[in-house]
């Protein structure tokens, strides 16, 4: 049984092996579905020179933004980074590199990385700055650009439930990039709200099969809401 028991008992154990200059792929969209404790552990470890692949970079004091405080991130690969004053400052001062990638291309690059597809063609970004320097080609009369896969040394994931085999499900829109990120890490670490018994998640409902997962840790989450908008504030016709 030991071979498939992926549950670890400390954040230190969960992130063991992370060293300077590694590439870390992080699930999450804004502050939704982010592995809060694993990010905080990276801050604690003071690992530096990181390339971080994630749709966004959190906010100044929460999520991936906390890794900016001590300049642990060398390069960010994201589709949107507009929520973060520290990010802007480090970018303008040349202390931080950013590779802006269309959101769908980013998701597909992670999936490709996990699925053994080194590169794929997409119409997204053709004729724009994103397509500059990339091969383009026509298929059926339409122009496409070639985009390459992304793989990470680590993938850090937030799931709702996981069992000790690493089988995961996500809750609502906290799913987002997490399933693709989970496939693309050499070492995939999942921080979960609930560790459940094997079999508790029906096999066909598992979002991330355990084969992609190396470590599972019981997390504790703040689950901060980035933009709280209620029905009272926006009336609908």
């Amino acid at each position, binding site marked *: 049984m030991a071979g498939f028991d992926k549950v670890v008992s400390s954040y230190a154990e969960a992130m063991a092996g992370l060293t300077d200059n590694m590439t870390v792929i992080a699930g999450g*969209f*804004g*502050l*939704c579905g982010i592995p809060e404790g694993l990010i905080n552990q990276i801050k604690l470890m003071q690992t530096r020179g990181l390339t971080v692949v994630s*749709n966004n970079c959190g906010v100044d004091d929460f999520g991936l933004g906390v890794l900016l405080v001590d300049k642990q991130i060398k390069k960010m690969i*994201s*589709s*949107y*980074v*507009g929520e973060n004053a520290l990010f*802007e400052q480090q*970018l*303008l001062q040349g202390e931080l590199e*950013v590779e*802006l990638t*269309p*959101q*769908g*291309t*980013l*998701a*597909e690059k*992670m*999936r490709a990385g996990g699925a053994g597809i080194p590169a794929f063609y*997409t*119409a*997204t*970004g*053709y*004729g*724009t*700055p*994103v397509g500059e320097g990339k091969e383009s080609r026509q298929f059926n009369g339409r122009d496409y650009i070639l985009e390459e896969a992304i793989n990470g040394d680590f993938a850090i994931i937030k799931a*709702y439930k996981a069992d000790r085999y690493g089988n995961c499900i*996500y*809750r*609502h*829109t*906290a*799913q*987002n*990039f*997490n*399933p*693709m990120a989970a496939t693309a890490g050499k070492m995939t670490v999942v921080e979960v709200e609930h560790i459940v018994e094997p079999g508790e998640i029906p096999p066909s409902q598992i*979002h991330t099969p355990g084969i992609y997962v190396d470590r599972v840790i019981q997390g504790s989450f703040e*689950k*901060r*809401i*980035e*933009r*709280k*908008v*209620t*029905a*009272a*504030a*926006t009336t*609908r*016709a």
Partner: protein
Amino acid sequence: MALSREQIAMRVAQEFKDGDYVNLGIGIPTLAANYVPNDIEVMLQSENGLLGMGPNPTEAELDADMINAGKETVTAITGASIFNSAESFAMIRGGHVDFTVLGAFEVDVFGNIASWMIPNKLIKGMGGAMDLVAGAKNIIVTMTHADKHGQSKLLAQCTLPLTGVNCITRIITDLAVLEILDGAFYLRERAPGVSIDEIKAKTAGKLVVPDNVPEMQV
């Protein structure tokens, strides 16, 4: 008179057909959801992984795991589905979303759009906009016809970095509804009380004005 944001949104909503899957960008496009005609139903796609987006939640319904692509708390309607980002963009890039409505800084007569980056200002990123303009079957751009300095946003050629090329066919502004065809803007409707001369004056790219340009019904 130039349309209000709400009136632009109303006019956008008239484009929808019963059964359309629609992705609405932040700002005026999002408002269009409020004006879907009562006799039709559309389903809203949010590119973070939600098909069947509902209204914002009540305080009691608030849930950090339930947000839209603008990172705002939302709900899901009955019949909604929730999925990962790769699946979400498979829908978008595979042409399964019928309509995308989004804002822009500039559009030109070739159907090019610039909407994500102003050089020498901070670059925040394109999010899903490049995927949306590359993937949707129909794209409607909503924007004011001119910027706050009176400069036209409908150009002979975009000056800002592009979001997509040859992809825009329909624009709804505060002054007019226009179609892009054969390298020109075709004036299809004008805002109530807005003169064709004003629209001409505020359209920098080639404008074709048919004999009959009805007023919008908003």
